[in-house]
C-alpha cells in the first residue's frame, strides 16, 4: 500500500525536517513491479544547497512536495478525481491507444514565505503563493 503522507509537527527551528534534500530528491523507488497510485511525495527545496544563506534569513529550505502515480480505473475516492477524470479513465480502459489515462497533479497548493535581505540591506518578507502541494488528484 502506498505510504500515507506523514502529518508533520509545526517546525519550531529552521533545522531541516527531512533527510531528503533538493535538488532532485525523490522519495520513492520507481519500482516497475507495483503500480503507485496517484499521491503526494516528498520534495525539499534547500536554500542551503543552493548556497543562498548569505541573503536568505529564513527558512533554510521548505517542503514543496510533488504528485506522482497512476490514475488507473477504478479511481477510488482517495484520488481526488474529477468527474471528467473518471470518464476519461473509463474510455482509456476501452481505447487505451486513443485516450490516455487522467494525470496525477496537485489539487490544492498553498503559500510559503521567505525572509531575505535585498542588496540595500532592507529586509523583505515575501509570501509566495502556490509553492507547496497540499494534495494531489487525478485530472
Amino acid at each position, binding site marked *: 500500500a502506498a505510504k500515507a503522507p506523514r502529518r508533520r509537527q509545526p517546525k519550531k527551528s529552521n533545522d531541516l525536517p527531512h533527510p531528503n534534500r533538493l535538488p532532485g530528491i525523490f522519495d520513492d523507488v520507481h519500482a516497475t513491479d507495483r503500480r503507485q497510485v496517484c499521491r503526494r511525495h516528498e520534495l525539499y527545496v534547500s536554500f542551503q544547497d*543552493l548556497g543562498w544563506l548569505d541573503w536568505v*534569513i529564513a527558512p533554510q529550505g521548505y517542503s514543496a512536495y510533488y504528485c506522482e502515480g497512476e490514475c488507473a480505473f477504478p479511481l477510488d475516492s482517495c484520488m481526488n478525481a474529477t468527474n471528467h477524470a473518471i470518464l476519461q479513465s473509463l474510455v482509456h480502459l476501452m481505447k487505451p491507444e486513443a485516450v490516455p489515462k487522467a494525470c496525477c497533479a496537485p489539487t490544492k497548493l498553498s503559500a510559503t514565505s521567505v525572509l531575505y535581505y*535585498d542588496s540595500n540591506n532592507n529586509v*523583505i*518578507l515575501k509570501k509566495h503563493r502556490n509553492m507547496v502541494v497540499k494534495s494531489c488528484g487525478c485530472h
Partner: protein
Amino acid sequence: SGSTVRRRGHSAGVPQRRLSGAERRDVQREILSVLGLPGRPRPRIPARAPSAAAPLFMLDLYRAVAGEEEEEDGEEATVSRPVLTGLSTQSPPPGSVVSRADTVVSLVNMVEQDRDLFSPKPYWKEFRFDLTQVPTGESVTAAEFRIYKGRGVSGHGNSSWHISIYEVAAEHPTRESDLFLLDVQDLRAGTEGWLVFDVTAASNHWLVDQKYNLGLRLYVETEDGHSVDPGSAGLVGRRGPRSKQPFMVTFFRASPSPARVTR
C-alpha cells in the same frame, strides 16, 4: 553534487544527475524568478544571526507567518501587522493580525538629521528611508515607523510628553519645511520601549513618486508646549545600538488580479 542520494528506510539510492555550470545557473535563475527576484541579492550584512532591530522584528514576523502557514490547510495565510500605536519593552512584537499583506518590507534608515540642543528651537529629528525596493504591482496597506525610547535625561520623570511625527512635504531654502502631521503619542517622560507610529499616508505619497520622499520629522514637547531635544528625551537614532535603531515597516498587498507575466 552527483552523489548517490539515500532515502529514509531504503538502501538503494537514487543517482542524481550532475548539472553543468550553465544548467546550475539556469536552475538558480529560474527559482529566483519564481521568487519574484530579478537576480541574486548581495547584501553587505550576512543573513546569519541578524542583530539589528529591523531584521529581528522581521524574523518575529516571519515566525508568526510560518507558524500560520503550517497550521492552515489551504486557507490563505495572513501576515501579522503590529498593533498601530503600541509600546513594548523588548524587541517589537509581531502584534495581532490586522491586514493580509503579501509583502512586508522593512526599510533601512539611510539619512538622519538632528536639530538638537546646539541649534535654535524647536528641536527635531529627521529620518529618511531607502525606497528603491518597492514590489511592483502591489499597493501599500499599512506603514509604521518604529523608534526606541530609552529613559532619557533625568529630571522629567513623571511629566508627560507629546511626541508627534510629520511627513516632510516640501523643503524651502529660506523658510521652514512644509509638514504634514501623521501621528501623535502622549506618554510619561520616564517610559521606555518601542514606539510605533502610523505613517501609511506618507508611504502612499512616497510611492506615487519618490521625489516626495523627503523623510519623516519627529518632535518632542512638554505638556505646556516647550520643545525637548529628542536625543535627550531618550529617543534612539542611527548612532544608537543596532538592536535599537529606528526603522520603517511597510505592508503591501498584491493587486487583485496581477496579470501572469509570461516569461
